[in-house]
């Protein structure tokens, strides 16, 4: 419906609208395309960016500079177009490398996007007569295209960008953006290279903004440093916020309305108008974080929940290829040698050595603070340990980040279920399959292929009947089960589980226990389990390791550990192991 209305507006606009309005809408169309990129980056992916203006400026100045200094010819126009895109892609890669490294905070990424337009604008200011300094460049020759045609070009560009963005965010690949926004660390532990996704996204966004800037310079025949500056960058964010972040259509409408109204009102009441925008912005951020768009949608639909019924894919068993891409399964599933971890002077892990085979269900027990969770972190993230080595399926994880450790066969479930609240059960599972099945960039698959173990967890817990439900509506136990199914969907050969039964009811606990035993028995996984519930440990483990104060103090069968005097002493709160006066 929106599409049809937009087409009619763009086709008929020049015939029915006054000239002043046509002129303003051309500019607003181009701004709206840039606002869409802000919405994709911020609204969908959670990267608050102030820097899209810089790419708009790069596109605009590549036209302005080349047309001013080399003159306008069709060849130069093509050259300027290519130069604008090339420069913005390179800058986006640089910014992405700086802002989106593994472990970067979201605030730091925002800082970098804030610094970018400041630098670009300063470079333009300092360019003397070459860039025109603070007054910019104007009066250069440009395309001899009528204003009506520009209107159609800009309108078609905006519709294309909107439609492309709409297809993309609804596609299987597009859901990854929301998953990153909701829980970046979970994505990394599902084998997704989040930094790479963000950098690619920034590069595409940069190209769109640069094209908009190029067209802007072409039609207005004026460029100035303000168009590359940080204040324009924040204005884009304001338009997106007012329209409604994460809705695509909201930011487009927000930008068009605000930019055109500004053109009309700023003449009469310049300061008051800006004041009103500022007030509206603050009110929306504080009271209506989702912007105006959802509000309008609710009014239009007469109060009904207008959310479309989520499509539910058909579950199918996947053709399983565990250890895909790895050499034959190694001698040991996990092999640790001298693993140490300290925070400052505090030694948390002190020389841990052990090996496990496939088919083993190894429980790590020990009192709080023994280093169990830290050990799990060290096995699944190469950057965690202070020294020592960790081998997964005989592959040294070196200093590799979690998403690369996943490729060696590690699947890690966290202590508190980490899931994606805004996605459905099926979408979450699809995200977990990203590493093994490249998702489409513009469509949604009708089937969802999952390995047998994951299917079994879904069926046993009834989640297979809730595929279209949003995760935020699931119970605590269901979230735990979903996270387990997601990790199993990775087809891991080493499964790390941190208190999988915490907060579960007795029947749920029994169920999980049975599934785990099947996974090791039938599917040959190696499971490393951290657990406080010693009865549970006794029932399912094939081997138990006791940690105490960062040291491995006992490694044996269930019977050996349960009967050990040592374990009783530790749990009774006895003294240190070395003192011998327990």
């Amino acid at each position, binding site marked *: 419906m929106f599409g049809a209305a937009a087409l009619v507006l763009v086709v008929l606009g020049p015939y029915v609208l006054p000239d002043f309005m046509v002129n303003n809408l051309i500019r607003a169309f181009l701004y709206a395309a840039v606002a869409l990129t802000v919405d994709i980056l911020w609204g969908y992916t959670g990267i*608050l960016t102030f820097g899209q203006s810089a790419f708009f400026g790069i596109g605009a100045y590549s036209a302005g500079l080349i047309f001013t200094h080399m003159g306008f010819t069709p060849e130069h126009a093509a050259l300027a177009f290519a130069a604008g895109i090339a420069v913005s892609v390179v800058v986006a890669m640089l910014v992405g490398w*700086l802002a989106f*490294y593994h*472990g970067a*905070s*979201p*605030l*730091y990424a*925002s*800082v*970098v996007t*804030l*610094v970018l337009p*400041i*630098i670009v604008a*300063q470079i333009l*200011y*300092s360019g003397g007569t070459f860039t025109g300094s603070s007054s910019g460049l104007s009066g250069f020759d440009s395309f001899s295209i009528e204003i009506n045609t520009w209107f159609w070009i800009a309108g078609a560009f905006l519709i294309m960008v909107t439609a492309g963005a709409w297809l993309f965010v609804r596609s299987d690949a597009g859901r990854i953006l929301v998953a990153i926004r909701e829980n970046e660390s979970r994505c990394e532990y599902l084998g997704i290279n989040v930094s790479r996704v963000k950098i690619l996204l920034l590069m595409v966004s940069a190209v769109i903004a640069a094209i908009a800037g190029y067209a802007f310079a072409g039609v207005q025949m004026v460029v100035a440093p303000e168009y590359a500056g*940080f*204040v324009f960058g*924040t204005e884009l*964010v*304001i338009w997106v*916020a007012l329209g409604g972040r994460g809705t695509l259509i909201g930011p487009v409408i927000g930008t068009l309305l605000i930019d055109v109204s500004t053109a009309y009102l700023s003449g009469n009441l310049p*300061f*008051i108008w*800006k*004041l009103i*925008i*500022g*007030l509206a*912005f*603050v009110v929306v*951020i*504080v*009271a209506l*974080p989702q912007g105006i768009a959802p509000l309008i949608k609710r009014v239009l639909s007469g109060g009904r929940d207008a959310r479309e019924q989520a499509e539910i894919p058909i579950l199918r068993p996947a053709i399983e290829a565990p250890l895909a891409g790895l050499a034959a399964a190694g001698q040991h599933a996990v092999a640790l040698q001298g693993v140490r971890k300290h925070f*400052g002077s505090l030694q948390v892990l002190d020389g841990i050595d052990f090996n496990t085979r496939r088919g083993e269900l190894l429980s790590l027990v020990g009192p709080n603070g023994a280093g169990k969770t830290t050990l799990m972190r060290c096995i699944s993230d190469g950057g965690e340990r202070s020294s020592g080595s960790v081998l997964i399926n005989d592959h040294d994880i070196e200093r590799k980040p979690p998403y690369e450790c996943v490729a060696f066969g590690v699947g890690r479930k966290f202590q508190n279920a980490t899931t994606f609240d805004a996605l459905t059960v099926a979408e979450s599972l699809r995200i977990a399959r990203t590493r093994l099945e490249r998702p489409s960039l513009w469509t949604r698959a009708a089937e969802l292929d999952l390995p047998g173990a994951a299917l079994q967890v879904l069926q046993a817990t009834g989640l297979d009947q809730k595929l279209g439900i949003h995760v935020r509506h699931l119970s605590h136990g269901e979230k735990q089960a979903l996270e387990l199914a997601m990790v199993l969907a990775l087809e891991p050969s080493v499964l790390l589980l941190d208190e999988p039964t915490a907060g579960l009811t007795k029947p749920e606990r029994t169920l999980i226990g049975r599934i785990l035993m099947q996974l090791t028995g039938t599917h040959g996984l190696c499971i490393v389990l951290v657990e406080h519930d010693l009865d549970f440990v006794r029932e399912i483990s094939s081997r138990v390791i006791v940690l105490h104060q960062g040291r491995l103090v006992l490694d044996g069968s269930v019977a050996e550990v349960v009967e050990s005097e040592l374990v009783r002493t530790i749990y009774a709160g006895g003294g240190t192991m070395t003192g011998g006066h327990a």
Partner: protein
Amino acid sequence: MAQVLDIITTAAILYAVAAGLLIVFGVMKIINFAHGGFLTVGGYSALLVTRLGWNPWLSLPMAFAIGCVCGMIIERLVVRPLYARPLDAILATWGLGIILGQVITLAFGREVQFVESPMHGAIELMSASYSQYRLVLVLVAVMLASVMGAVLNGTRLGLQTRAVIMNENLARGLGINSGLVRFVTFSLGSGLAALAGALITPLSSVDPNMGVPWLVNAFMLVLVSGMSLVSLAVACAVLGGAQVLVSTYGNPILGGLTIVVLAALILRFRPQGFARE
């Protein structure tokens, strides 16, 4: 010699400008982008004092008081609902900065104006003459740092504030009214920003957007300083010094970028910046 003095006075000015932002970031873990707006409020407080024909030194308490009152109102209305949404808090406070700027434009006009400086003339210092006022600013910054240090380390409120900085949940569990600590912190932070705005105006001029360039530098300095007033001083000295050197031997426009670029690079390779750990 003049260059050494330039570095010292630049660092002192940056310290005065960033101090308010630092305590708000430390206690509330939010970046107050209205900080630039408060600097502007301080600048116009000084202008008001000039217009009223009062002693220019009075602009300092005046700016501090007006800044505190603005901060109190804003904390209650806008900042409090955003404690759990730090990125949104950046945006909302940026919007507040716009509002402050527009209100000031409506009241005072958008043109550049000048305020009466409390001190004129230069002083002979080791065979070089140097602006007296800039040297006085160093004293003011040192006093500011001492007072803040004394309040944090010597008073009950300071103790509670440090507790909230270290572990807010625990502090609340121990019966500290962290809401009140936040309220007082934001008000004082705003007051300090306005005070800094009044301090810097005699060096240049006032206009409704005067706060923005300062905001960005102060923001970067706070990010590389972590939570500590001491590391803020170090950051101001190092980055401020670099700015002076680049402006002198490179060019002033590059000099203006020195702090943001260096700070962004420092954070990339050492996320804790100038803080010890």
